[in-house]
């Protein structure tokens, strides 16, 4: 048996216990907390993504799936989102699909859990319900070039 000084042993045990507690916390919260990690929804060819008819992002925009339920396809490119603005009634549930035409982008919609990377070649998907009327800005939060700071859009929730 290797000789370990009692003080050093105490610190090793404390470190190991801390690691175990963190691992257990991550594990249980991921299972119990209903954490939805955004995983790639589908693959899409970035060279064709903006071509009308080639992919569902050829004509991006908002579509009504059912009363109060929408899907929004938003195309990201340097340095704009298309469409830049979507309008819905309060209480609507919107499933967002994002795809990039060129480089890597990101998006965060204010006051929602929508916080995604938009990678060229992949479709990112998340759903949010907008109960409170107001204007929810969404911005690109992954540096994408000199015009990055101008890349934003708005979800306008009407009462």
């Amino acid at each position, binding site marked *: 048996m290797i000789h370990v000084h009692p003080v050093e042993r105490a610190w090793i045990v404390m470190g190991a216990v801390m690691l175990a507690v963190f691992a257990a916390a991550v594990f249980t919260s991921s*299972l119990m907390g209903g954490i939805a990690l955004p995983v790639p929804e589908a693959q899409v060819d970035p060279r064709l993504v903006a071509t009308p008819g080639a992919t569902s992002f050829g004509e991006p925009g908002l*579509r009504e*799936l*059912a*009363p109060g339920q929408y*899907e929004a396809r938003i195309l990201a490119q340097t340095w704009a989102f298309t469409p830049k603005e979507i309008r819905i009634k309060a209480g609507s549930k919107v499933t967002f699909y994002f795809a990039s035409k060129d480089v890597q982008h990101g998006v965060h919609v204010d006051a929602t859990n929508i916080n995604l990377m938009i990678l060229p070649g992949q479709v990112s998907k998340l759903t949010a319900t907008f109960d409170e009327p107001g204007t929810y800005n969404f911005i690109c939060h992954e540096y994408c070039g000199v015009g990055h700071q101008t890349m934003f859009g708005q979800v306008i929730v009407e009462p």
Partner: protein
Amino acid sequence: MRWALRSAYGLLAVVVGGTLAFAIFQPVKVLPRISLAPSLWLTNQDQRSLTSETLRGQIVLYNFTYTRCGERCAAQTSVLRALQQQLADLNTGSVPVRLVTISFDADHDTPAVLRGFAAGVGADPGQWEFATGDAAALKRAVGGGFQVYYAQAPDGGFEFDPALVLVDGWGIIRAEYRTAAPALDRLLRDIRLVAEEASNSAGVGRYAYEAAHLFLCYAR
């Protein structure tokens, strides 16, 4: 004392090693549980009611169309016809597999029209059913539940995104194919995987399948 410590470390190594091996080599493969399927209240081609409850315990592949669709929907119908033939040879144990074609053209596609259409595509009524229902309820179930966009065009036809959805016997969506012409072998493989899970996940086998879900052992 020393042997107790050693066997405790040994046990820990076996547990950690076994978990890692399971997650890396993925001996059990599953399809993800995507979400709950919507409840359905439909009328089939024989004017009998077809609901999500009567379809419990069966693997159901849904597709969405309308009978006047014509050429645009021919590819999907022919894939389903081929699938129906292949399913005859596929042993899915105690879990029956059913194909359900839902028409969103409730005004035109009456049970009689659906029956004619079913005969036209060579559907075996015991395996492949055609159904429609109340327009507002359909919109909620197909549009809201299955997330399949459709809207009536001014000429009476429909604008829609082609899709097939695989639902397991517990009423959970397990695969979505958002394409007009899905690959036949992919459909067969997925149906086989869901059927295997249903028949093998009794007793201890259930834990292996739950572990496969936990460690995302998804078939690619």
